């Protein structure tokens, strides 16, 4: 991100970064940056807080009004935003634990409710329907892998199917609203769903695969602290 700032400024555009990792900004010295105290993936703060999002944007743009003979790095004016768990949050259905596909079938109506409530979905980069995405991963290493439409390499399809499965479950988890923390949602997904277990096992196989492309995506499937190999120490 800081590299882009250097290139854009050099081309004649005024830039400001909304920065999540302060140390990276200090190291790469873009002309102007506002450090914000939010978790990675949320540069403008928690979802649904339009006022806070606007304040972040306004404070970032206000840096353009300050002289910056040297790289300018300011902290967002409010560091008091705490990440709290929602003690009342529960996944709004009982999961079928007979198989990953059965579990996904049970999640489908919940996900549809979530889509209706949120008004959109971030699902859809694999080109597979949710249950098909689960089946694709489940059968990936079997003697009879699932046949898929052309247009994407097999390994890429697996990576994006896994991204979609995560979106499918985590969107469904918000079907009844609430304010669960990211940690709460991820604890649930990785610790209490067959889909999470399926992806972790897939990641473990990919990590030691002789298929270099599969090995390459292994690091993009499961957060490092939630992989089987890390948890086993």
């Amino acid at each position, binding site marked *: 991100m800081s590299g882009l700032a250097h290139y854009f400024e050099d081309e004649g555009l005024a830039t400001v970064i909304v920065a999540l990792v302060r140390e990276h900004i200090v190291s790469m010295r873009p002309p102007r940056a506002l450090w914000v105290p939010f978790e990675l*993936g949320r540069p403008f703060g928690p979802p649904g807080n339009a006022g806070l999002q606007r304040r972040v944007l306004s404070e970032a743009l206000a840096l353009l009004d300050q002289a910056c003979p040297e790289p300018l790095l300011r902290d967002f004016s409010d560091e008091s935003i705490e990440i709290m768990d929602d003690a009342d949050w529960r996944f709004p259905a009982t999961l079928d634990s007979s198989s990953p596909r059965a579990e996904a079938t049970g999640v489908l109506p919940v996900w549809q409710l979530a889509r209706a409530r949120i008004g959109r979905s971030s699902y859809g980069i694999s080109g597979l329907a949710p249950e098909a995405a689960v089946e694709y991963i489940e059968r990936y290493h079997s003697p009879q892998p699932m046949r898929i439409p052309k247009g994407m390499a097999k390994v890429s399809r697996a990576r994006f199917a896994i991204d979609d499965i995560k979106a499918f479950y985590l969107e469904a988890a918000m079907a009844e609203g609430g304010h669960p923390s990211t940690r709460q949602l991820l604890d649930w997904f990785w610790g209490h769903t067959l889909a999470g277990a399926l992806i972790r096992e897939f990641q473990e196989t990919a990590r030691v695969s002789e298929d270099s492309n599969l090995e390459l995506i292994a690091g993009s499937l499961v957060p490092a602290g939630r992989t089987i190999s890390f948890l086993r120490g």
Partner: protein
Amino acid sequence: MVRLADIPEPERTVIADLDCPAYEDTPPVKPPSPAERHVAIVSTAGFILRGERPMLSNETGYRAIEADVEDGDILCSHVSTNFDRTGFQQDVNVMLPRERLLELEREGSIGKAADTHYAFMGATSPPKLEDKARELGRSMLALGVNTVVLAPV
């Protein structure tokens, strides 16, 4: 929250080890006055539009998000598992605050919100983005954009 020291291991080491090449200080452009600011957002979330090919790791190109694209057609194809996506799943503005930018335009805090915003793949090493970044910079200038808010994930 996100000082490196606050991030638990092993993610902390992963993030600390990210490629941060050294740059000479770039002389900052003299910014336009607030009323003259024509502002675009450039994200590194690897956004694609529904139906497009997802961005791959180390991809150097960028994608455009036009004003008439619905929020539901904006997908995130970044490869990293280190950042939260649940916020974005509930509210696009967590990563791409284009509604907030339009509000700033309406209240007169900026001159204009750009019609198009852009996304790169943040997992790509910054020097590899240089050619496409410069190309995009010139393209934005040609469209009248003079100010860029850079939004990482």
